[in-house]
């Protein structure tokens, strides 16, 4: 009998699915459930010229900006919320090495809905007078054919690849999310429906038999997924809702390190570039510290 293909692979194999210059979308939202293990691997692999397309971004974009991997950022927000400003991103935009293309938060989300519906753009009636439109030639004005009023076509997000970090998946790419979820998990769903080139990193790899027990929780079906990576604590220092808390102390260390390029370079060497993959990262952060972040029923890696 023909055998189904496992998509389980290493973090490096998954990162190598991303080409220099690709448009990349990360799941999660703001400082919540970001696929940081893969972000780290993109840096180790030395990817260049990426465009990150998102709605609300944070340490994902900031780290890639600080490591020189990103050329363009299309989003509504890059910051660290209660931990402060995204200083690498700020410096990169100010010195011109990163181009910031600003989109309103929900329209940035709608750009992924356009892809999901096979549309070239998402329409909005309400951008007149805004520098969002005045400064972005990719947004085109058109006339609403029903009433003649001005409308704006917001280009689809068009990611070449989407990356999400999730509580559990099987080796074929069926993704299980939390029994109760919020908007960061909804964003995982949104980006995963904008492409069939989805990279999944998972806290746990579970048997397909277990996947079949609760199909209503499996919001990303296998056929959308290109690669599955087992990456425990793969969102650190951002949380996985009901599974792992935010690592506040590490975030503060990150924010302090990103105050200058020199200190940030040392931070990257210590945690990302100078360690042996994700396991090396977890060792550098400290296993006991990571264990202490676990909560709820999602542990047991």
């Amino acid at each position: 009998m023909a055998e189904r293909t496992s998509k389980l692979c290493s973090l490096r194999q998954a990162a190598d699915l991303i080409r220099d210059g690709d448009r990349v979308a990360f799941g999660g939202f703001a400082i919540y459930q970001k696929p940081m293990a893969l972000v780290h691997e993109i840096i180790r692999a030395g990817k260049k010229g990426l465009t990150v397309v998102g709605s609300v971004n944070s340490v994902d974009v900031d780290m890639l900006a600080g490591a020189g991997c990103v050329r363009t950022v299309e989003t509504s927000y890059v910051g660290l919320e209660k931990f402060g400003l995204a200083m690498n991103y700020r410096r990169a935009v100010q010195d011109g090495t990163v181009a910031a293309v600003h989109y309103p938060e929900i329209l940035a989300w709608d750009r992924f809905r356009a892809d999901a519906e096979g549309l070239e753009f998402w329409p909005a009636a309400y951008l007149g007078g805004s520098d969002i439109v005045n400064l972005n030639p990719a947004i085109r004005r058109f006339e609403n054919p029903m009433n003649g009023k001005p409308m704006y076509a917001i280009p689809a997000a068009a990611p070449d690849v989407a990356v999400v970090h999730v509580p559990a998946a099987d080796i074929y790419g069926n993704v299980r999310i939390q029994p109760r979820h919020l908007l960061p998990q909804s964003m995982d769903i949104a980006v995963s429906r904008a492409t069939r080139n989805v990279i999944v990193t998972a806290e746990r790899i579970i048997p397909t038999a277990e996947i079949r027990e609760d199909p209503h929780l499996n919001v990303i079906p296998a056929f959308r997924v290109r690669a599955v990576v087992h990456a425990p604590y793969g969102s650190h220092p951002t949380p996985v809702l009901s599974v792992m808390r935010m690592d506040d102390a590490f975030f503060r260390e990150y924010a302090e390190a990103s105050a200058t390029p020199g200190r940030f370079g040392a931070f990257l060497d210590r945690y990302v570039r100078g360690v042996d993959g994700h396991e090396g990262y977890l060792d550098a952060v400290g296993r006991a510290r990571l264990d202490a972040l676990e909560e709820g029923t999602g542990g047991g890696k």
Partner: protein
Amino acid sequence: MNYTMEELLAAALAHTIADGEVGFTGLATGKAAAAYNTNIPLLGMGLAKRTHAPNLTVLLCGWSHNPDLSQLKAMPECEFANELLNLPCEAQMQDYPGTWAYKAGDIDFAFGTGVQVDREGNLNCTCIGDPAHPKVQLVGPIFLPEHFAVFGREYIMMPHHERRNFVGRVDHISGVGYPGGTEGRRRLGLPGGGPKYIFTPRCIFAFDGAGSLYVKSIHPGVTPQELEENTGFDLGDLSGVPATAEPTAEELRILREEVDPNGILRL
């Protein structure tokens, strides 16, 4: 009477809220931003709900409907953490699209802040200097373009009232006010009401029916001269401007005993 700036502004805010409205507030962090963008809105909405607007819907962080803040011992600092997930409320927006549709007019009012606001009510939270080569890159427009263009009305909440915040022209129009007045807004096709008030530590501004900015009231203890010195555009004749009404004893009791019994919104 003893009251705080937050209580003064919360009472003034409550008076502008109508019964049955849907109000949206985020979860700002940092002392000044939290006071103006989260605490004053929650206090004002809580007061309105307990006086004249029992059918008000409060959307905390945009997704928790009518949360029971009396269950909290401290304000959360994270909008998507388990403490808010488990906070008793009436509904949770788990997905976008979800429980409300702002494009269809579901949000009656919300609160927004930025580093610069101008006389037309345009707000900037994106960058300082030429946006093509910014001198200072800020966090980005976030949800403010939608707030200003589509919501019923916007309260601009400015924790600092200095000349650098109240400018002749903002460097980036992140939220659109009244370029060309209300007629200008109509020509732009903006469906929402736009900014209606600006709350600051010195005064409350409002926009009249033509979309023109005026000083609605000056806070007790603030002089017109002080206001002019700290505002980067002409305020016109301030001689007839009343003082901001102080909260009544009953309003203060409701704020302290019912809206915020654990003191989590006080600074």
